């Protein structure tokens, strides 16, 4: 195929323990380590492997976010993407808006395959890929843990609640990826240097003619109710009595 488009999001690194702002207006991001959403990184790795196996000519990455998002796009270029598109927008958007902005890039670039993570680990929405697929009436395969390309068809193994489902989808298609698809490569220093010279185009969402009026208002972000602190027991007999006391084990 000619092109694979990979959509990536800048999120708080998955190792960071998030902290909530004292006024409960959101989560603290100042001075917090940011990364490519881990699922999107796996999507990019898969695109690069398809290209390296000779089945694609170009891997393009796109991200929507504040100006700092270019750090993650540079990381993606260092991993091996050929060029990057940054749609600059300072505040979080709703997935339907993200899907519509991405649809403009799909119209421009006409990729045969679009890959992205099954969800972003910040809003955990799990919507964008499916919405983008519907905008073009493209096939979708979500929760992908294995992808095999044969001609114009992709066979995708999906991790669903009941087990592993296998779907065949015709290209062009959208695949949203799960954790077991692959293990992303580490970027090496020379690649970071090379990535600085790769093209990174910055777009103003206004030029893409998509309504960005919110329809969902976040009233408050709070910590989940804390669990009562627990007890430490010594052995199995203590556990048995404790569970019996709580009515969780029958005598």
């Amino acid at each position, binding site marked *: 195929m000619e092109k694979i488009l990979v959509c990536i999001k800048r999120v708080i690194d998955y190792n960071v323990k998030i902290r909530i702002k004292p006024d409960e207006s959101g989560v603290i991001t100042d001075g917090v380590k940011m990364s490519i959403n881990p699922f999107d990184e796996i999507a990019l790795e898969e695109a690069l492997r398809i290209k390296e196996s000779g089945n694609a000519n170009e891997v393009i990455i796109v991200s929507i976010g504040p100006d700092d998002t270019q750090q993650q796009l540079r990381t993606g270029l260092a991993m091996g993407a050929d060029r990057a598109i940054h749609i600059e927008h300072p505040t979080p958007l709703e997935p*339907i808006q993200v899907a519509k902005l991405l649809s403009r890039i799909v119209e421009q670039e006409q990729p045969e395959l679009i890959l992205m993570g099954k969800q972003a680990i910040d809003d*955990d929405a799990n919507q964008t890929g499916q919405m983008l697929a519907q905008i073009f009436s493209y096939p*979708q395969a979500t929760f992908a843990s294995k992808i095999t390309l044969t001609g114009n068809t992709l066979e995708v193994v999906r991790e669903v609640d*009941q087990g592993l489902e296998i779907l065949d989808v015709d290209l062009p298609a959208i695949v949203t990826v799960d*954790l077991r698809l692959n293990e992303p490569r580490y970027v090496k220093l020379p690649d970071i240097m090379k990535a600085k010279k790769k093209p990174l185009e910055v777009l103003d969402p206004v030029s893409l003619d998509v309504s960005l009026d919110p329809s969902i208002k*976040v009233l408050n972000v709070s910590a*989940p109710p804390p669990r*009562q602190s627990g007890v430490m027991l010594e052995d199995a007999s203590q556990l048995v009595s404790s569970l019996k006391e709580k009515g969780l084990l029958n005598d």
Partner: protein
Amino acid sequence: MTSDQKVLVIAEHFQGEIISSTSKAINCASQISSQVDLLVLSNDPNLSDHASRYDGINEVLVINDDLFENSIASIMAPVIAEIASSYDYVLAPSTTFGKDLTPRVSAVLDVSQITDIMEVIDSRTFKRPVYAGNAIETIEINQGQKVVATVRPASFKDVGDSNNASVKILDLPSVDIPNHTRFKGIQSEVKERPDLQVASVVISGGRGVGSAENFEILYQLADKLGASVGASRAAVDAGYVPNDMQVGQTGKIIAPDLYFAFGISGAIQHIAGIKDAGTIVAVNKDPDAPIFEIADIGIVADLFEFIPDFLSKLD
């Protein structure tokens, strides 16, 4: 409760049965309005009988067609969107089925969507988890806009099954249905134990269990307690157990009364799946394992010594 609002719940089914997460979505719907209908798209006419028994359902809408045999989102979404034109809300369980399907419905309807409703504050205001449940958002959706949402099963109880709702068979609406997606099969192991998402006791094992063979001891304990068996991602990745046993942010979110974590360190992504569990028991040989910070009962022990001892005390 604004009772003139109409809610359409999408039934999830697998191998001839409606899945319990559907019942939880109905519970959530009933907290929004008393006008709740259940839509069953399948090729199995027997499902409507079960569907009509759920308490809180006004009417069961059924389309029986071979198109719906395998719940393919690109086929179902245009049909659901068409039927949704006379509804104010479309709800589905927040399972891999509901998550796959509903955003396509939202896109046809051109509306924003809410993932994982965990609490209904009022008909426009909901709570949902973000950051793997480490923060809870309270959100308000604009007046007058159709609401498409998924419902977090672990946050709602099942509804009863003493209803006898009327069943209406609908014709397949004339919408464009694509043929670009073909179902090839599903590998689903026959489960001898209770379903992970409905079991009241769950025994999970992590990397500390060490091998597929070693999981046997957990199965023994599970059978003794009538429990289901789950696992951490590390245990699934290592091939000890299949993927559908994974508990956590990217696995199943469960709410059993009693949860056992054996050889699981307690990463936030794992904890995300068990936040709603009643009592969490953790057995780990490392006294500093983070799982002890959230466990109700912690025991520092080698699981291979502990479990046989525990089993013998249960006799």
